């Protein structure tokens, strides 16, 4: 009888590489490994267990076994259109921690706590305290102006002609080069942010600055790191008038994520932001009963299903 291997467990986000893109090929499981098989039959192993999120571009096909395996090792699968702008995601279900969800919802529902969280987000993003006695709406307005200025400043710094941030996500080729670079760079950051939020056990939809979108919290978290990571990268690449902007952006993003140690910082930052709300993580109510089958010991992040 052949020996049975220990069960699969997700590893922490901080020990992984940020993102991999699969442009074409069939994703499948062979001998327990996650592989991309191209049309010649060449197999390329993808170390999904060590990848935060896998971007599947329009030329890829995925088998049932491949999705199941990605989900067991906690790798977020993102189906994207051309150039990596997201369409759909799966593989890392999230919602595994009721206590975290309730905590996040409690913070979002409490006006005072929400304002504190929003202030903390701006403080982390701009590295200074926002003006006192402002509502969330007022802060949002101040931020909008500041962001437009930052775009202009960076465009000038890298010598890129910049009109405004605009793009038509239904028609990829329509945007100008700086906007296209920005879109594909932010798509990488959104993928990582969503994976981190899910891994930490929170809900992508419950946002504080952004609201009403399935990824509101993803945009909130990504915005904190956007101007220190992907935005300068996008302008730097755009300034070189690249032949293949998407590829150059991805290479540069990978480098900046490594330099800024984004994957190491992102989950602790999420916790720090939510802690600024000043509420305690809800305790189990007295009549709660511990699960009959105790949860297995986990070496991954809190929200990973072990």
């Amino acid at each position, binding site marked *: 009888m052949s020996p049975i291997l220990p069960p699969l467990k997700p590893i922490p986000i901080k020990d992984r590489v940020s993102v991999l893109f699969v442009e074409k090929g069939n994703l499948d499981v062979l001998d327990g490994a996650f592989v991309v098989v191209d049309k010649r039959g060449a197999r390329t192993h993808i*170390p999904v267990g060590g990848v935060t999120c896998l971007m599947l571009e329009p030329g890829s096909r995925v088998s049932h076994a491949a999705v199941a395996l990605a989900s067991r090792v906690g790798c977020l699968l993102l189906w994207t259109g051309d150039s990596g702008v997201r369409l759909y995601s799966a593989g890392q279900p999230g919602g595994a921690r009721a206590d975290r969800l309730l905590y996040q919802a409690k913070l979002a529902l409490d006006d005072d706590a929400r304002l504190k969280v929003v202030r903390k987000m701006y403080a982390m993003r701009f590295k200074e305290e926002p003006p006192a006695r402002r509502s969330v709406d007022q802060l949002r307005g101040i931020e909008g102006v500041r962001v437009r200025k930052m775009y202009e400043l960076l465009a000038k710094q890298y010598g890129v002609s910049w009109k405004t941030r605009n793009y038509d996500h239904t028609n990829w080729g329509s945007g100008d080069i700086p906007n296209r670079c920005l879109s594909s760079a932010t798509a990488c950051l959104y993928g990582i942010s969503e994976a981190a939020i899910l891994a930490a056990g929170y809900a992508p939809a419950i946002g504080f600055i952004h609201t009403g979108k399935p990824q509101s919290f993803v945009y909130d978290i990504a915005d904190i790191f956007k101007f220190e990571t992907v935005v300068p990268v996008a302008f730097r690449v755009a300034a070189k008038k690249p032949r293949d902007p998407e590829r150059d952006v991805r290479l540069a993003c990978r480098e900046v994520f490594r330099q800024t140690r984004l994957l190491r910082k992102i989950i602790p930052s999420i916790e720090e932001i939510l802690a600024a709300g000043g509420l305690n993580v809800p305790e189990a109510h007295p009549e709660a009963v511990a699960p009959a089958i105790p949860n297995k010991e986990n070496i991954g992040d809190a929200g990973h299903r072990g």
Partner: protein
Amino acid sequence: MLVIVVENAPPRLRGRLALWLLEVRAGVYVGKVSRRVREMIWANVKDGIDQGNAVMAWTTNTESGFDFQTLGTNRRIPVEMDGIKLVSFLPEEKEGSEQDEIASS
């Protein structure tokens, strides 16, 4: 950390590698050396590999934390996916010509 694996290498080269590295299994050498020493060792592999093939992997500051390079023909060939190096395993019957085609693309 440095790992070299040689296949079908002449005994002369295997003895040479064992001067600087530890042969933990047949043809598998490990050690920890500087970049200059690594390049010197790889130059030895290059000159001595003959009909065999070799791969060398070492720790470095890429996102995956390591890099690797190969010598000689093997069904496993390095591929680069937007800044991360992976390996493609070629189907059996299509060796040779196919390999050159992929390597040049």
